[in-house]
């Protein structure tokens, strides 16, 4: 049984826009990020990475590196203990410990270029780097498999030794397809046979990277008493703890992970690539602190991007504008090890539509590219691109209004998602209605200058959001301020959005809160900042802790005033009993006779989250002679449940849209014939800059989430999904040609125009 709440409207703190508590430190450069960590006696590590995308390691000779002056330790996979062959939760996906261990350091075989083969610790960074270059590795180079078609072709060499694929329940050996699964209901084939129109297309896309500014880093001290201390840029310190413990086969209780500020993650910082290696280097260096920091090339080549792949999409429709059936094959690149986001893609792919029948078949396919990781609504952007491309063609073919058609087929309360889950109250219809009424949708495109053409696209998307475990502690200080500990890494201002929820309960200004994110020894378990779970879930812990604190304070007031606790009421930050009243911040300094400090802690484990929908409208202007696309107007409409801090919610929507626009128009892993990512720098990996984006207008629709006391829904992820199709359909509208392959880069637009 899940508790539900009635919507409130009369908030004091929720819905306001206070300055974030960490703002001053971040803008003045005082905030401590992972690469800033210093410790007495610190030495540096460096990693030797594979120059080949696919190869067997015949031998590794570390002797010259070990003999170099200044080198403390050289590490290969042989230094790792045997890890258990089991999977653990990494927040947004799972990590198989044995495979995770060979992903952080190759064991006999390299699966992608940049795969770590050995590590060195030395007096300084340059010495470590030079020593790593002295390690001699003898490779037997194997053909690189760079796409899902090659990986799935009969006779393709298997990338992962010993992989047994699960293909619809059948065990299959010697395969690159780790998993095939299906969700199906209704008679899909019969529905297609009886449809007025059926359109089937196959779309494809390349891997893309989250592009966080801060590279991965870790510093570790493995002390002689066996206790391991880690600092690492991560979306969740407890995830680093569990992965490091699992990969090193030591108890989690031996590890303390300290929180450091994080310079972006977007799902990519849920995997502990460096902490286990830094830990082993520290142990082998006599317990010295060892620091590892990736460079940008390694971030691109060897941390987890979002999968590329292919999606076949078939949709049937009747003349009355109702969808009859939908069928899709989602074929996503896992990278060098199993575990793409295809499961989440299957959850999201049909979630915008109320379908009478559907079939979803997912394929998790290994290729010689980095092991994919979560990226903002993992799997949903690709899925949204596929379905919205076909929906747009259906609307064009039948003359349906693109918003009305979506309204006529929209998922709503009671709709079953393609994987069977039934929706509670959701806000897609409200978002579509807001889009229909928006200034953007009702404004003409405007005239393009000579030689250019304008077009408009619209797309919807879905993300289920996350719940899980979180902890929050509140400590009322004598001066009436509140110390707050919570366990969520703060990526988007969540210290403040969490504190605001406790502040609303307590009637204390949020400016009087001092939020901290302590180490893993000092706060109850809290899952990663991911899945759009943090403001919802950790916020719920803060809400519960605040109510516990009120209850505690009611007892204290009863003590002070020598009355029964039942006589003490609390409203608007004031305790009252028998005609007396006292404000909570005044009360704070008077607690000593009642038992001293007042504290409260709350942990939650939320099974459900409430769902997020977005509808985006994109106008582009295309230079027909060069294929250059400029986004000239953009509006993102989203059901945010309740915007706790509207500026942060809007910032999430704008940031997601910016990343999705980049994914649509220019970003890609450009893989050359050797299986290497050729564009492994920010110069050639073309993320949009501020000059490439218009102001992204937002319309926040608030359909309260019945699972949260303030109606909060996660907001951070769904906004990256609609732009892939919205921008692509806008280009299609501008140039009159459809596009089935991402990115819709200038060269592809010229090709479509001129047949070149």
């Amino acid at each position, binding site marked *: 049984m899940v508790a539900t709440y009635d919507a409130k409207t009369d908030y004091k703190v929720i819905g306001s826009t206070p300055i974030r508590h960490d703002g001053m430190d971040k803008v003045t450069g005082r905030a401590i990020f992972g690469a800033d960590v210093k410790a007495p006696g610190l030495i540096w590590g460096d990693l030797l990475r594979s120059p080949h995308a696919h190869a067997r390691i015949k031998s590794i000779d570390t002797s010259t590196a070990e003999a170099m002056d200044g080198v403390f330790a050289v590490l290969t996979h042989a230094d790792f203990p045997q890890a258990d062959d089991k999977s653990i939760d990494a927040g947004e996906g799972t990590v198989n410990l044995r495979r995770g261990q060979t992903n952080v350091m190759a064991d006999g075989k390299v699966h992608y270029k940049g795969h770590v083969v050995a590590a060195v610790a030395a007096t300084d960074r340059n010495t470590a780097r030079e020593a790593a270059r002295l390690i001699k590795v003898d490779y037997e180079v194997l053909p690189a498999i760079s796409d899902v078609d090659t990986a799935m072709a009969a006779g393709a060499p298997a990338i992962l030794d010993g992989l047994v694929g699960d293909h619809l329940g059948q065990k299959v050996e010697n395969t690159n397809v780790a998993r095939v699964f299906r969700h199906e209901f209704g008679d899909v084939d019969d529905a297609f046979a009886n449809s007025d129109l059926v359109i089937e297309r196959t779309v494809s896309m390349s891997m893309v990277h989250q592009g966080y500014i801060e590279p991965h880093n870790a510093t570790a001290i493995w002390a002689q008493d066996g206790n391991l201390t880690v600092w690492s840029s991560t979306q969740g310190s407890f995830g680093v703890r569990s992965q490091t413990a699992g990969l090193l086969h030591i108890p989690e209780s031996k590890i303390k992970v300290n929180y450091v500020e994080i310079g972006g993650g977007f799902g990519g910082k849920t995997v502990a690539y460096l902490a286990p290696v830094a830990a082993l280097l520290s142990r082998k260096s006599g317990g010295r602190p060892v620091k590892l920091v990736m460079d940008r090339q390694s971030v691109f080549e060897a941390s987890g991007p979002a999968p590329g792949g292919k999606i076949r999409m078939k949709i049937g429709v009747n003349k009355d504008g109702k969808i009859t059936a939908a069928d899709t094959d989602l074929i996503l690149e896992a990278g060098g090890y199993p575990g793409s986001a295809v499961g989440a893609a299957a959850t999201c792919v049909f979630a915008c539509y109320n379908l009478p029948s559907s079939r979803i078949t997912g394929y998790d396919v290994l290729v010689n590219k980095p092991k994919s990781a979560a990226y903002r609504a993992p799997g949903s952007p690709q899925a949204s691109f596929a379905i919205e491309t076909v929906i747009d063609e259906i609307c064009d073919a039948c003359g349906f209004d693109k918003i009305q058609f979506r309204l006529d087929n929209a998922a709503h309360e009671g709709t079953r998602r393609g994987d069977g889950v039934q929706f509670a109250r959701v806000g897609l219809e409200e978002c579509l209605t807001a889009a229909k009424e928006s200034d953007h949708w009702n404004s003409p495109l405007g005239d393009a200058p000579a030689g250019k053409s304008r077009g408009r696209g619209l797309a919807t998307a879905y993300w289920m959001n996350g719940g899980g475990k979180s902890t929050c502690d509140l400590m009322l200080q004598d001066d009436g301020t509140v110390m707050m500990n919570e366990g969520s890494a703060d990526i988007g201002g969540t210290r403040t959005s969490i504190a605001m929820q406790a502040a609303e309960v307590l009637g204390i200004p949020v400016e009087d809160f001092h939020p901290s994110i302590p180490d893993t020894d000092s706060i109850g378990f809290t899952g990663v900042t991911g899945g759009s779970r943090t403001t919802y879930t950790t916020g719920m812990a803060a809400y519960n802790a605040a109510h516990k604190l009120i209850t505690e304070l009611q007892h204290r007031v009863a003590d002070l005033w020598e009355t029964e606790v039942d006589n003490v009421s609390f409203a608007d930050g004031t305790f009252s009993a028998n005609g007396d009243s006292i404000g909570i911040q005044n009360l704070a300094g008077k607690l000593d006779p009642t038992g001293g400090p007042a504290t409260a802690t709350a942990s939650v484990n939320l099974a459900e989250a409430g769902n997020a929908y977005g509808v985006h409208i994109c106008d582009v202007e295309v230079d027909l002679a060069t294929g*250059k696309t400029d986004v000239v107007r953009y509006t993102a409409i989203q059901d945010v449940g309740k915007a706790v801090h509207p500026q942060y919610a809007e910032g999430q929507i704008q940031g997601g849209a910016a990343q999705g626009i980049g994914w649509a128009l220019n970003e890609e892993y450009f893989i050359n014939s050797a299986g290497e990512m050729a564009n492994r720098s920010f110069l*050639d990996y073309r993320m949009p*800059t501020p*000059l490439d984006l218009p102001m992204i207008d937002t319309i926040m629709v608030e359909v309260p989430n019945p699972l949260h006391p303030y109606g909060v829904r996660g907001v951070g992820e769904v906004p990256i999904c609609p732009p892939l199709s919205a921008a692509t359909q806008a280009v299609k509208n501008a140039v009159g040609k459809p596009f089935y392959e991402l990115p819709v880069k200038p*060269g592809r637009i010229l090709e479509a125009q*001129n047949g070149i």
Partner: protein
Amino acid sequence: MHPFAYVAPGTIDEAVAVLNEHGDRARPMAGGTDLIVKARANAWELDAVVDIKNIPELMSLSDNGDGLSIGAGVPCYQVYGNSDIAAGYPGIIDGASIIGGIQIQSRAGLGGNLCNAAPSADGICPLIVHSAVAKITNASGTREVAVEDFCTGPSQTVLNTGDLLVSIEVPKPAANSGAAYTRFTPRNEMDIAVAGVGVMVVLDSSGQNFESARIALSAVGPTPILASAAGDSLAGKPVNDETIAAAAALARDAASPITDMRGTVEQRKQLVEVLTGRMINKAVERARG
């Protein structure tokens, strides 16, 4: 990164002596925005880095009436930040102002851009169409090389061991002339040319006919390319869509691009034709004042 000696001599002679001592394991450094990146990536293994920014001749920027002299170490911002130069040489400014972002332009200069010899260099084509000359010195004397002959391949130049680029000499533009440069990039800043075109035109006094023209192409061959046939085709011709289109088609023929992550052969050839037409028109506009 291989450890290297950092040397910052105050005179050309001292700099040349260090370069001679270390041969190809020493490099002059102006802004360092290419050199340090290459050294860190171990693309260059250097024993000595010779910082030229303490050598007065290499840091001087002057317009003496007969032309412009740009010291090899002068950063881009000084070039485009000088209002006289900006007014007199707008085609050079077109290139200097789009090399990297503000931070890069504060260190990087046209001399380094030339010596780095990237096919995609934005600074080189404008110099070529201006008929600029590179002044090179070594232990035995000084010589001058036309900028279009300076680059011999990707990252390859006419500089030999012990050679030091002192300055780039740009002759004063003829009356009724105009120059312009642009590049195509998918993004609006912080990007690298898929193709680039520089144009210089000299018109007759009526402003209706071309007397001469020079057209140079970037990122469509192993070096920046002087498209002589394209430029020469305009000499003596009236300024009209037909003559401009014909020159643009010849520029397309002069391009010999490859397909890579930045673009395809066909895309680049088309871009050269389109951008050449646009830049001829822009240069004509500037020539007419």
